[in-house]
């Protein structure tokens, strides 16, 4: 080989090695960047859980203050949050005073704390009052739990969630975080004594990993995650080696230009794929968060069939603002609520969650729809300024066949009977957040036997080029005609009215008298 050829070959090999290193460095940078983003997303998901833990407790305390510690009302409210199918294993009401906190009532399992005065004093008596959720890791028991307390000066509500003994938990295969190993700790450190849950056999988390601290109430969680595979797509993992292989080939052919072009295109393709994957993951997260904000199950109300469905909107990466809920304030009465927070994103979802849980508390107190709307409007104006929400609140008297409806900027409900379908003439007041001088009005309607009441959000009927009235007429006509069950009717409506990729999310909530 001539001296020139030797120099070109040496140069070529050096450049190939650099290309391989460069591709590897780029791969690592991309992986680390994506990992950091994903872990922060997971952190947001955990943070967004705070309202769903704090608001039920805060609402239960407010209820206790308003009803002077009524045990019956507490049990009725807490029943949907605590127990075998609830989000907490137990929820208990305590009264606070000069001495030790006194247990007034408990729903679900008995609180682990109950027999231990020192712990009761520390985690209930000395919990911060009036605004912050107190997080109590109680890992020393045979059944480890996390305790949560929300307190005012007079009452405290304490709830417990049970941790698995072996602290093993799995991420659902359908979750956007399914491709990760994780460990969640209480507090700031990754000490095994503070471990809440993990899907790993060996800790601490090794390999490429990233950890964040997530403030939660008066405490925090430490979340560490590690990807199981490549985040930026399979090709990247091999690209350093591909560069090496190609490089040597090209060096032998002494064509440096070709090698550079191949490297650039492969990097550009990989980055584009990473962005698409990240986008898809963000959309999944939004849908997961939205589902987490909606009620897991609707109550059984004798004499009726109740069903609801939520359809997320276009491939957006932000959480929608639609919500619905059904609450049973007393036997024989069902309170249906449906609403739409204007705007999207995590903040709107937090407002939505706040409205939902607060409405339940006022409903538990026995407030009628127009008063509930009034209180929600005050809440949104004082705590979520700049946010607006439409809400429809309908109190159904099952045996009496009456519905009392109040609407804050929300579309009127549809009533289906054997003779046809029509909209209830409900006068809509302005949405929550817009000051209403005269308060919300209520309208009462008598309902015929076997009727169906349908409430919905505008995503179900609003379409480009057609007016709301036209959309409502389309819904009305689509709802007529027999259906074997309420769920079948609602499924049919969604199929007929929502096609392709709608921009806006849509929710539909129905109650059918079964006799």
């Amino acid at each position: 080989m001539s001296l020139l050829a030797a120099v070109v070959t040496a140069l070529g090999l050096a450049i190939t090695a650099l290309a391989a290193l460069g591709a590897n460095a780029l791969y690592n940078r991309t992986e680390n960047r994506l990992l950091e983003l994903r872990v922060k997303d997971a952190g947001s998901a955990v943070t967004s859980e705070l309202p769903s833990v704090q608001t039920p407790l805060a609402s239960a305390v407010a209820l206790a203050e308003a009803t002077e510690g009524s045990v019956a009302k507490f049990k009725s409210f807490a029943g949907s949050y605590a127990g075998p199918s609830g989000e907490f294993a137990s929820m208990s009401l305590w009264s606070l005073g000069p001495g030790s906190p006194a247990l007034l009532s408990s729903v679900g399992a008995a609180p682990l704390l109950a027999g231990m005065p020192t712990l009761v004093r520390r985690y209930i008596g000395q919990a911060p009052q009036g605004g912050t959720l107190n997080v109590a890791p109680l890992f020393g028991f045979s059944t480890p739990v996390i305790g949560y307390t929300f307190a005012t000066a007079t009452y405290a509500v304490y709830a417990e969630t049970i941790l698995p003994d072996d602290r093993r938990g799995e991420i659902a295969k359908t979750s956007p975080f399914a491709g990760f190993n994780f460990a969640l700790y209480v507090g700031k450190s990754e000490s095994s004594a503070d471990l809440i849950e993990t899907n790993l056999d060996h800790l601490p988390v090794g390999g490429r990993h990233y950890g964040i601290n997530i403030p939660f109430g008066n405490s925090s969680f430490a979340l560490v995650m590690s990807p199981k595979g490549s985040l930026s797509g399979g090709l990247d993992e091999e690209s350093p080696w591909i560069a090496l292989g190609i490089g040597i080939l090209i060096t032998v052919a002494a064509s440096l230009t070709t090698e550079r072009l191949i490297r650039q295109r492969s990097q550009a393709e990989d980055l584009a794929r990473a962005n698409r994957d990240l986008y898809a993951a963000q959309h999944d997260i939004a849908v997961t968060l939205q589902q987490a904000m909606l009620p897991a199950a609707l109550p059984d109300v004798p004499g009726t069939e109740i069903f609801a469905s939520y359809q997320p909107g276009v491939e957006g990466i932000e959480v929608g603002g639609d919500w619905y809920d059904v609450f049973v304030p007393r036997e024989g009465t069902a309170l249906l609520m449906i609403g739409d927070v204007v705007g999207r994103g995590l903040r709107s979802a937090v407002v939505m969650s706040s409205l939902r849980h607060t409405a339940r508390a006022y409903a538990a107190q026995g407030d009628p729809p127009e008063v509930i709307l009034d209180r929600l409007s005050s809440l949104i104006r004082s705590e979520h300024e700049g946010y607006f929400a439409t809400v429809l609140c309908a109190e159904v008297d099952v045996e009496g066949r009456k519905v009392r409806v109040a609407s804050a900027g929300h579309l009127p409900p549809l009533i289906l009977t054997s003779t046809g379908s029509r909209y209830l003439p409900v006068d809509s007041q302005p949405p929550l957040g817009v000051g209403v001088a005269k308060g919300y009005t209520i309208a009462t309607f008598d309902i015929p036997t076997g009727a169906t009441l349908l409430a919905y959000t505008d995503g179900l009927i609003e379409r480009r080029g057609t007016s709301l009235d036209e959309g409502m007429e389309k819904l009305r006509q689509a709802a007529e005609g027999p259906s074997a069950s309420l769920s079948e009717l609602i499924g049919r409506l969604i199929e007929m009215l929502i096609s392709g990729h709608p921009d806006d999310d849509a929710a539909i909530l129905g109650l059918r008298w079964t006799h």
Partner: protein
Amino acid sequence: MDSLSGSGNGPGDRAPLTVDLSADGTTAVVALTGELDISNVSVLTAKLEEALQASPEVLVFDMSKLRFLDSSGIGTILRVSTRVGAVRLRRPSDIVGQVIRHMGLAEVLSIEA
């Protein structure tokens, strides 16, 4: 008159919207052309900040060329209404008028012909 448009590209295409500002004494006129929804509401918000710098007493939204308006557009209009003396909606189309009526805002946002 200057204008700002949002036009579509990328996932979640933006609907077409043009916002033109003009002034009539202490009244700022915001003319909307096209469709206003969640995908382009930020275009309007940016323009409104500009219009508010002149501290107008009255803000008029000329909606004669607006084909579509949903709750996110209404939200932006409601939010800005707290920062000026009065907000008026000029010649909203039937489609837009129905949104305002169904949201119970016919008396809150004054509509002028």
